[in-house]
């Protein structure tokens, strides 16, 4: 018999290294000879879209188009350290560093331009002309951002370990086949707090990816470790979802700008996957009245739990 149920998963996530550990990002913005702006930073593009989002922050700050931002992040010998591409920290931390470096570059450009021509409105300044008129002079701005975090007390764990916090809520509807134990997610909604969306499409991409990864954590992934040995060590036995297993996700971006974020943005790379598994587990209970307390919720575990429930009822 197929039974349906709904479940919700609601979470918070603290950005950054945490607990007072120095969490520093750096950026250098340089005006190029052709009027384009180079951004040098050690922030890695791991596929999450940081190169694009961080370029947008630079373009916004300088009032130029994203095509005029040259983003360099691949070489330790020419880029400043911007910390790791982790802890959902690059948009927030390095975004702030880039914004600062661009603001400083902007001040310097205004400074030399006002001295030279008397132009005072940023909109009247043509960066190509500035670069031409100041050949031989390197116009650059440097930016550093240090995240807010304090070390917690040893005995009580009290303190302000992270900032900011990001919120995520998933709701799912599942269909559980009580004859074979298969759980199918048939409907899913995600509401993601983003502070401010720098690039909504990229946020939606993260939500889709996070949903698939969370669904996989809830229902499929099992390394089958026996006496320290990973028995499921290839993609023929370590199951991850295909497009057939992942339904369309309804995506809701919730904007509530964070005062300390670049243009109000917060990091979302991790939060987007966290609410999925608990929502699925709650939906399974709603459908068939059994709590799966050990991941993954494989057909075998579902059938065993149902059997146990029937035995208790007898």
């Amino acid at each position, binding site marked *: 018999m197929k039974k349906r149920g*709904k479940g*919700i998963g*609601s979470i*918070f996530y*603290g950005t950054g290294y*945490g607990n007072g550990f120095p969490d520093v990002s750096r950026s250098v913005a340089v005006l190029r000879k052709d009027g384009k702006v180079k951004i040098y930073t*050690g922030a890695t*593009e791991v596929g999450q879209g940081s190169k*694009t989002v961080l*370029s947008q922050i630079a*373009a916004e700050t300088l*009032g130029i*188009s994203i095509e005029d931002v040259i983003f360099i992040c691949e*070489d330790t*010998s020419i*880029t400043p350290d*911007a*910390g*790791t*591409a*982790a802890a959902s920290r690059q948009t927030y931390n390095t975004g702030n560093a880039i914004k600062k470096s661009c603001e400083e570059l902007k001040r310097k450009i205004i400074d030399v331009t006002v001295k030279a021509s008397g132009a005072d409105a940023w909109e009247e300044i043509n960066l190509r002309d500035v670069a031409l008129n100041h050949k031989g002079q390197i116009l650059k701005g440097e930016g550093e951002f240090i995240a807010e975090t304090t070390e*917690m007390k040893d005995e*009580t*764990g*009290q303190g*302000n*370990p992270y900032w900011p*916090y990001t*919120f*995520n*809520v998933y*709701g799912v509807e599942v269909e559980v086949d009580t004859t074979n134990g298969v759980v199918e997610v048939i409907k899913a909604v995600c*509401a993601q*707090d983003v502070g401010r969306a720098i690039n*909504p499409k*990229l946020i939606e991409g993260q939500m889709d990816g996070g949903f698939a*990864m969370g669904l996989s*954590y809830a229902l499929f992934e*099992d*390394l089958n470790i026996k*006496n*320290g*040995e990973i028995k499921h*060590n290839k*993609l023929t036995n*370590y199951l991850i979802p295909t497009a057939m297993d992942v339904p369309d996700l309804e995506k*809701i971006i919730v904007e509530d700008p*964070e*005062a300390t974020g670049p243009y109000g943005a*917060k990091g979302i790379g*991790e939060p987007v996957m*966290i*609410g999925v598994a*608990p929502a699925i*587990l*709650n939906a399974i209970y709603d459908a068939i*009245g059994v*709590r799966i307390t*050990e*991941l993954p919720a494989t057909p075998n575990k579902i059938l065993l739990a149902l059997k146990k429930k029937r035995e208790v009822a007898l």
Partner: protein
Amino acid sequence: MKLHVVGQNNMRVDAAAKVTGKALYPEDVSLEGMFIGKTLRSHKPHACITIDTSRAEAMEGVVKVLTYKDVPHNHYGVLMKDHEVFCSEKVRRIGDPIAFVVAVDEEVASKALAKIKVEYRELKAVFDPEVAMHQDAPKLHGESNIVYHYKLRQGDIEKGLEESAVVVENTYVTPMVDHVFLQPEAGVAHMEKDTIVVTTATQYPHFDQLEIAEALEVEKEKVKVINAAVGGAFGGREDITLQIHLALATKLTGKPVKAVYSREESFIAHAKRHAMVMTYKTGADEEGKLKAMEARIIGDTGAYASWAINIMRKAGVHATGPYEIPNVKVDSYAVYTNNPFGGAMRGFGATQPPIAHEQQMDMLAEALNIDPISIRLTNAFKIGSKTATGQILKDSVPLRQCIEAVAEKLGFSVVSRGV
């Protein structure tokens, strides 16, 4: 604020290169005259070893076989430096690197791996973190397997549980899982005059640079890390895998050296999400207002600490979920075992506790005959809320909006409970 670029759906700046195949991933990089490197790994979870590489080194086409003897400073790790670049006396997990063959091609390198003789004298191993916490359990490093204990205390837990109309208890278990990024580890190292250049895919090139320099005992400025296109990471590229092996191989041979892991080797080479056992006790009053939450969380960090301290701390801080609870007691532990090592993975310790706290919320709701949405809204963080660590949430807390949006879209008002 009027914004002209922020908020726009700009196309990814790296999209064209990636969809046309122009983007260079480390596996795509080939340098003239380069050697191929392959790693010999432990087959035992806990053993003393002796290594004989002489037969492999005598083979035609084998340039060098690197072992611990070749590493100036044989230690690395993101926090504890408890990894050895190559195991010297003891292996602590299946997959620990023991040697690295540098050969003219892959075939020779593979054959040479089989010629290296490793004698294992097996030691008693421990795979269950709760067993590993006992004083008489086999030890992985030093005197105790408990790497870290995070204590969170707020209010009076006993009083809070007493004052609760309903208390629910359960134990939740989550396994280790893999990141399964698309592109298994690969890299090429070469010399640029006296600078060692390592081209790889990493989450943090400046930290890799530091770890390579420390292991090789060279100045940081004499190491350059080039981050090629990265085929996904999710935390799995935070710990070093092949970077030091390649750097050392090119430094000692003077020639470019490349290594590419198979999917199977990738599974064994990098960290896993921490397996956790989470025992929860949560109490609420008749209106569904949370009064108390007690949790004991044990995280299995396997053979090495990696980020265990930060991860189990994050698990402890996030153990309550996004709810105001006046009385909280959390004990979160990171424990060594002879399992694969635990490390960073998307969520970083904040992914596991919701498996517990969100089911606890639904159990409380059912016991109190309240719906799952209302109980969450009753307790949800808002501006001015105090977290269990005493932190005041001063800005941007749109949790209620998120819950209400999901409830509306999924039609949660008509929840029918149970079978």
